[in-house]
């Protein structure tokens, strides 16, 4: 959008000069004249006036703008001046003038060349529904070509008309329709604040619009909660899926599972550090590099744990639990010693930062990516269990260890690989979680109880159970949160799971058959 050049250069200078008269009504005239001039200097002048950076020399009638960094320009011409004249004094304001200044600033930004600024200005007019902006809005609306900006202007205009006491009933009804179509929290606030002395038709329209906005908002807040729930569910699934393998397939309680997640997160940190110092251009690919590395690191540690500790404890799950808890303490302390106890900075690559709007809700890219990533991992794992030789052997060992051994499957090798696989997946989870959580030695601790809940709730030995369990818990948690608060919601979930386990001690999707009575 281009401005029409100031019709008369002289009139702008005359208007500016009025600031020097030190008279409130002259200043008022000057404000409206400058704001209406469309001169590029208008915005700096008026904002300087608001912040008392506009000074005038009463003798020469020259007006100066002091920039925020002390640079002084002549307000009429924009030419730089060395320093303020001795007798220049700030232009004084009273409350009435301050309102005029604010309105002028709003209308000036409404005419800005940047569409985003115009929308922001329109939104601020919508909130303030300042009557004085109506003329500018009408003007701007006529000239506007950008669709989004046009809609924002129309909404701002509707807001003003609604609050304008002498607007006709037809105008008001139209305005209500526009505000109703906007349908968000602000529209609700606008209608709620409306004075009650409306014509009956308008009042009825407003009531029905409010009801419709209310249900619209409720719907969107459901969608919002569902999205948050999906997002939380994906995080839970990510943390629990490795556990579903080690606990579900092998019956091994690995309390150090959270620490495998932590190792994955720290692998990401190391990868990013190397990239930052050596190959800064690769930063966007850092996560792609970290995923296989984290799998290898955590998987290797997992195999070591299985060979070094867990294989001596098969058939003694309670002892396994204690030994792996001890291991988790050792791993945490080792990481604390190596990397320090504080949070380490892991950055988001550009394709994972930012957000987009979907209707009334905001979806951040990192959450969306993590959801997709989790589902991808889940599908890959499912396919692996279904179609590969290792998957077949793993299922055989799960169903009947002795029979599998009799059929020539090296069960101890399968055990080691299964444990490595579960740990490796936990490592990958760490890469993803490093994007949304603090990378600290305690990272794993915060997930371990939740992941156990997911696995136990979903049913041991069944990946689908884990999927359903994770998303159920995630969504239930987020729907309880607005009602009960975050902490109470979480407590309620824990209590519900404890009660649920009483009903179905083997989880939602229990393995059937003799394998159960292990």
């Amino acid at each position: 959008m281009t401005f029409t050049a100031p019709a008369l250069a002289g009139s702008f200078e005359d208007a500016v000069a009025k600031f020097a008269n030190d008279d409130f009504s002259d200043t008022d005239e000057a404000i409206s004249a400058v704001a209406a001039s469309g001169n590029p200097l208008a915005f700096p002048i008026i904002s300087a006036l608001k912040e008392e950076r506009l000074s005038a020399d009463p003798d020469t009638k020259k007006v100066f703008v002091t920039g925020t960094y002390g640079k002084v320009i002549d307000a009429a011409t924009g030419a730089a001046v060395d320093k303020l004249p001795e007798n220049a004094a700030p232009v004084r304001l009273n409350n009435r003038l301050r309102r005029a200044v604010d309105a002028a600033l709003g209308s000036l930004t409404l005419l800005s060349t940047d569409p985003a600024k115009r929308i922001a200005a329109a939104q601020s007019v919508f909130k303030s529904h300042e009557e004085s902006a109506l003329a500018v809005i009408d003007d701007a609306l006529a000239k506007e070509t950008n669709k989004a900006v046009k809609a924002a202007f129309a909404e701002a205009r509707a807001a003003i008309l609604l609050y304008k006491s002498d607007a006709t009933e037809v105008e008001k009804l139209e305005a209500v329709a526009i505000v109703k179509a906007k349908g968000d929290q602000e529209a609700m606030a606008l209608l709620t604040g409306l004075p009650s002395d409306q014509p009956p038709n308008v009042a009825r329209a407003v009531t029905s619009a409010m009801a419709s906005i209310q249900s619209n908002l409720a719907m969107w807040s459901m969608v919002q909660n569902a999205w948050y729930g999906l997002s939380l569910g994906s995080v839970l699934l990510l943390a629990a899926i490795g556990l579903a393998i080690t606990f579900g397939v092998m019956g091994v309680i690995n309390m150090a599972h959270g620490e495998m997640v932590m190792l994955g997160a720290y692998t990401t940190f190391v990868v990013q550090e190397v990239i930052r110092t050596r190959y800064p251009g690769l930063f966007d690919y850092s996560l792609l590099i970290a995923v296989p590395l984290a799998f290898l690191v955590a998987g290797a540690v997992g195999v070591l744990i299985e060979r070094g500790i867990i294989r001596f404890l098969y058939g003694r799950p309670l002892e396994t639990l204690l030994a792996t808890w001890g291991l988790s303490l050792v791993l945490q302390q080792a990481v604390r010693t190596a990397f320090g106890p504080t949070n380490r900075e892991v950055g988001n690559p550009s394709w994972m930062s930012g957000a987009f709007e979907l209707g009334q809700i905001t979806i951040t890219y990192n959450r969306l990516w993590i959801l997709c990533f989790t589902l991808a991992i889940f599908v890959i794992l499912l396919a692996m269990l279904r179609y590969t030789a290792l998957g077949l052997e793993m299922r055989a060992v799960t169903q009947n260890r002795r029979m599998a051994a009799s059929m020539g499957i090296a069960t101890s090798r399968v055990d080691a690989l299964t444990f490595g696989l579960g740990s490796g997946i936990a490592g990958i989870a760490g890469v993803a979680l490093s994007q949304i959580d603090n990378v600290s030695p305690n990272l794993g601790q915060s997930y371990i109880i939740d992941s156990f809940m997911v696995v136990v709730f979903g049913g041991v030995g069944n990946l689908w159970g884990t999927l359903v369990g994770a998303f159920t818990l995630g969504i239930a948690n987020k729907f309880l949160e607005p009602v009960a608060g975050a902490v109470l919601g979480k407590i309620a979930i824990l209590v519900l799971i404890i009660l649920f386990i009483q009903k179905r001690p083997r989880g939602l999707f229990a393995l059937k058959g003799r394998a159960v009575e292990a």
Partner: protein
Amino acid sequence: MTPHVLTRSLDRSATIFILIVAGLGILIPLSNLLLPAGSMFQVPTYLVALWGKYVCYAILALSIDLIWGYCGILSLGHGAFFALGGYAMGMYLMRQIGSRGVYGNPVLPDFMVFLNWPELPWYWYGFDMFWFAALMVFVVPGLLAFLFGWFAFRSRVTGVYLSIITQAMTYALLLGFFRNDFGFGGNNGLTDFKDILGFNVQAEGTRCALFFLSCAALIGAFLICRAVVSSKLGKVLLAIRDAESRTRFLGYRVESYKLFVFTLSACMAGVAGALYVPQVGIINPSEFSPGNSIEAVIWVAVGGRGTLVGAALGAVVVNYAKTFFTSGPLAPYWLFMLGALFILVTLLLPKGIIGTFNTWWDQRKIELGNGAAASAAREDGAAPKPNPAE
């Protein structure tokens, strides 16, 4: 082992244990009060409080050993019962502060004044009376354990599932007690205690009396546990530990036995917590953290699961080591050591210190050809699985 040898050996070690605890319970306070400060044999007051803490931990360890060692229930939430008993006592101590608090409110504890609470919440009523608080020390943990066990044992939640949900229970309580609006002081918990039954909690005499009482409680808990495990009931508990389904098929109501012993154990843990709080001077939600409960389990494992003396010994040994290492230059390595302890004890010393010692002692007797009883014990007793549970 034959019942005869079992009873005899337990009798001897039990007597030694009771004598040692009673001796410490009397001698340490006497030395603190009667000997002049600076004397070689005088136990400084801070050590009395420290050892009082160990004794409370020993009671907690006994309560865990009773259910884990003798009934195969691994609770990872026993710290919750300990903390609940502690909170019950802490509430009494808070009410005793009266108008000596920072805000000088005669009824409301400081944190409630700070939160602008108009009056005492209903669940604080009665805690100004010692008998009521002392009753609650048993009732609150016992009731929670009863309800929890009622649901869990009747639906046959066993093994690791039970361990995980007990952990979830203490975690849920941890989250709850961290909240200010729960009415238990939130993050800071209850502290700044002044009096207990009219005596200053900081005074040497009070500390010595508390130490003596803790030792007495330890002996009492020990005797109760002994009575339980050496009774017929105890035999059924062992049977449940070793073959739960078979015991059920024999006609025993497994869940009732479990529920009884679980509730009893929770009450004992509550008493331990109640004695712990006045000696340490604070109770806060971190006592509920799952890590604490698991640490208490390892005390039992170190000392010897299924031996009552071992549980108490393990609690003292591990906590003494903790104090020793975390206060010295080795502090950063304490978690390594604790972690290694978990791993090494489960891998190399599954019977714990006392269990291993007992095995060694029996073996030695046989090697010396010392009597027919020992060799009989060998024939019957060496056969059992090294790890009966699960």
